[in-house]
């Protein structure tokens, strides 16, 4: 059985030639949660956008392949690619405030997608949406469906977006830091919801985050990203038990702990960063765009 998502040697550059992704390879097996961790600017979100076909115009993919369930996106024309991505993937976005259209009611926004993607009747889509709203524990679907986004709280909006993402039964969901914009108490509920729906629906998730605590809770496998390069990948339990790369060890050590609130935060050590910089420089030296 082919992987749900298979990225092979993906490299992308900015117009000035700077590399933002450095031969990234990763796979997400069906029904599996793969976490993608790294600091801001490491290229986590960029990978998610590349998969979904919404990279900014300025970023150019120069090499590598992306396969969704064995179908090579590079081999498809633009229209077929859009259809494939629309039917098999979905996004749980980072910021629930801007991810819903402010001038349209929640109900039509959600049903529209199902009618469009799956060709369902409006009635069937409506029923499906209600079922999903129930699954994300929204108790008064009538009110929510009739509301405009600004009438709902951030947590409610994120529930709506999770419901919308799962509604069309995608094979793969890209969750782009779905809890970052929420406050801590809501974060936990949302995380639990995503995990619950993921298990119930058997959906594969590429879970982008910078929070190792979240990684430990939700994922089976982890890829650690630094400056657009995968520096380590492992099973989640193994990564925490025996991190192989110095950067991963430093990252785990830098996580604040509730058990020792008075310990000062440990930034990633200078020598580790210097080692990483050397590693990346060496890789860039031998790299020729287009010829891997």
């Amino acid at each position, binding site marked *: 059985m082919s992987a749900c998502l298979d990225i092979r040697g993906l490299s992308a550059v900015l117009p000035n030639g700077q590399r933002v992704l450095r031969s990234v390879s990763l796979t997400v097996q069906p029904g599996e949660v793969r976490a993608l961790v790294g600091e801001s600017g490491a290229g986590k979100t960029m990978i998610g956008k590349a998969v979904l076909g*919404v990279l900014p115009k300025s970023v150019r993919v120069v090499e590598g392949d992306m396969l969704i369930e064995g179908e090579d996106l590079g081999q498809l024309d633009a229209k077929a690619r859009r259809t494939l991505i629309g039917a098999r993937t979905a996004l749980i976005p980072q910021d629930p405030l801007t991810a819903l259209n402010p001038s349209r009611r929640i109900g039509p926004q959600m049903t529209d997608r199902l009618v469009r993607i799956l060709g369902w009747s409006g009635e069937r889509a409506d029923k499906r949406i209600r079922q999903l709203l129930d699954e994300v524990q929204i108790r008064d679907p009538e009110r929510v469906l009739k509301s405009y986004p600004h009438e709902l709280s951030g947590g409610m909006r994120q529930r709506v977006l999770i419901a919308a993402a799962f509604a069309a039964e995608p094979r793969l969901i890209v969750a782009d830091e779905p809890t970052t914009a929420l406050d801590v108490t809501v974060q936990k509920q949302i995380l639990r919801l995503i995990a619950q729906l993921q298990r119930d629906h058997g959906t594969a998730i590429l879970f982008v985050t910078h929070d190792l605590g979240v990684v430990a809770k939700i994922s089976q496998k982890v890829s650690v990203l630094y400056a657009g390069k995968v520096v380590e990948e492992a099973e989640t339990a193994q990564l925490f038990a025996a991190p192989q790369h110095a950067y991963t060890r430093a990252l785990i050590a830098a996580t604040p702990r509730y058990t020792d609130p008075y310990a000062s935060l440990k930034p990633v050590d200078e020598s580790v960063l210097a080692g990483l910089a050397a590693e990346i420089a060496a890789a860039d030296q031998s790299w020729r765009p287009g010829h891997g």
Partner: protein
Amino acid sequence: MDEARIARRGLSPRLWLAGGWLLLALLAAIFAPLIAPQDPLAQDLMLERLPPFWLDGAEPGYWLGTDSLGRDLLSRLIFGGRIAFIVAFAAATSACLIGSALGLIAGYFGGWADRIISRVVDVWMAFPPVLFAILLVAVLGTSLSSVILAIAIIDWTRFCRVIRAEAMSQARMDYVESARIAGYGRTGIMLREVLPNVLPSVVALLSLEMGIAVIVEAILSFVNLSISTDDPTWGSIIAEGRLSIHQAWWVLVFPLITLILTVLSFSQFGEALKARFDPVLR
């Protein structure tokens, strides 16, 4: 929905004052033949320069006095309103349609479409608008339709610039991105996702533009370049009033007040509408 908030928003005095004046002026213009106390074109040199009703020497039936040819000022203002409103609606709507469509395309699609449209707008706006209007009317000939055409040709750039900027910021929103992921086409996203979110601005600008159209029409008729001199327009009444300012101040002052109130109401009405219809803005 919160009933109290709707009531509060609905009762904005700005909306009612501006809307009230516009409605009054519009109704007066529509039913001018029924409302106007006198024939606006009837001259009577025995009744020249009658003062408004509260001054000595006023005649009953001539509420705001008469001009130097003995024509009733109030009736002329009411009939002048017809031209003002026709020009306001027709010119502003045309400018709005052209400008908003191009602005939406430039802002949402970006790239070449944006570059071409934006350059045209830049060049367009380099012309002084009033001179441009005078030139256009001089070329097209003085008629109601050429005044409307001239205003639309000049002022579409206002819509284009604002709507372009709004569409650009909307196009960067996450909900546009999720629509793309879901597989919607670019044109579909533009009309379905972006357009509804720029509509409040379009409405506000449209109302503002109606005010501007009224001014431009008044300017054109002030310099005798609007429609035939027989029909009263606010601009032509002002032009006549200027000549007799020392003998009959009211011929200048009343049309000016009417003009100012109307233009002010259009702009305030637009702002109030925007605040009311924007679901995010409160």
